[in-house]
């Protein structure tokens, strides 16, 4: 054997020979049929259903908060921030579930593997959305104090305190954008991203690496239209 061509030819000949000796066992077809669906995707289904429920509950609560505070614009804005975030979680979960339920192994390999890796990165998607809360923490603080203690901290707080909160929000905004960008599957080889993603386990790391591999393969091989 001197090159790949020789090896490939030998391999093909061997496969042909082996194929002759494979027998079909027709008796067990009935037993095969009774097997339940595989559970490999159950974890992702659970995570996305949970996120969907959280999204619905948060959106309803935020909507209710807005309706009951129409007289105070800062409260309406706080409610709107929470509502927007809940809707992002809700829509994200719906999109992930749609991917899960429409996964069809008879479709082209690149499409299916793309979808599968996106599903495996569900947790990362929700973490990235959650980061968006950071610069808007004050909205949640306002709502919390209003709902739990019946206190409007925006009215009670003095100007300097409010300015310091705004400055802190700005800092958190910068941090959120930085972390959001770092937590992209494309940055998987960077130490910080690796460290941040450790919490999701090896599955997410592998999915990110594979997604990159897949995208590189697609970039290289111009996709059919």
């Amino acid at each position, binding site marked *: 054997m001197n090159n790949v061509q020789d090896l490939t030819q030998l391999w093909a000949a061997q496969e042909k020979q082996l194929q002759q000796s494979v027998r079909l066992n027709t008796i067990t077809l009935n037993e095969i049929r009774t097997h339940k669906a595989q559970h490999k995707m159950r974890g992702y289904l659970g995570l996305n259903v949970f996120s969907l429920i959280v999204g619905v509950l948060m959106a309803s609560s935020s909507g209710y908060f807005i309706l009951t505070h129409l007289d105070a614009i800062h409260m309406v804005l706080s409610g709107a921030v929470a509502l927007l975030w809940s809707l992002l979680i809700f829509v994200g979960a719906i999109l992930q579930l749609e991917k899960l339920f429409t996964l069809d192994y008879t479709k082209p390999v690149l499409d299916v*593997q793309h979808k599968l890796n996106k599903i495996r990165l569900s947790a990362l998607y929700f973490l990235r959305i959650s980061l968006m809360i950071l610069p808007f923490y004050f909205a949640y603080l306002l709502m919390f104090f209003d709902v739990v203690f019946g206190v409007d901290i925006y009215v009670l707080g003095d100007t300097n305190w409010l300015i310091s909160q705004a400055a802190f929000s700005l800092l958190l905004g910068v941090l959120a954008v930085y972390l959001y960008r770092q937590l992209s599957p494309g940055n998987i080889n960077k130490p910080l991203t690796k460290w941040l993603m450790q919490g999701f386990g090896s599955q997410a790391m592998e999915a990110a690496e594979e997604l990159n591999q897949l995208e590189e393969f697609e970039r290289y091989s111009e996709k059919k239209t």
Partner: protein
Amino acid sequence: MSNEKEARFESLLSQHKGILYKVARSYSYCLEDQRDLVQDITLQLWRSFDSYDPDLKLSTWVYRVAMNTAISFLRSDSIRKKYHITTDVMLIDEPQENGNEELMLEIQRMLQRLNKFDRAMFIMYSDGLDYAAISDVLKISASNVGTRVSRIKQQLNKEFFNR
């Protein structure tokens, strides 16, 4: 579930059992994995059988299901083992002979040098599929299949045969 459907499925398996074994051998590293993978592919084919698109060549369809199952199978051994349905049921019996084991080891060593997608492409190429058929399975253009296959061959000749 009609007997007719069963008969059609059996005929499909009997026609394309070689694809199942070739893919399973190329994506698994031991006999146990190979057995599990053949079973996974068979189950997936059975589940997808109703949605078979007659516009697609049967071998292309079988290859799509087999490759998608194999690539997913390779992903996480621990997850797979945790959730794998343990069974002795095998719709396709194992080959009566093992072939040239030395050759298979050599081929596996060579395939391990390729990423999952290049490997898929090379397996189909070595099985005699034309570029259009490989393009249908993967969804890249036939001309790109040609370019990639020749690069894969160059890569393997260089890395594996030092040529």
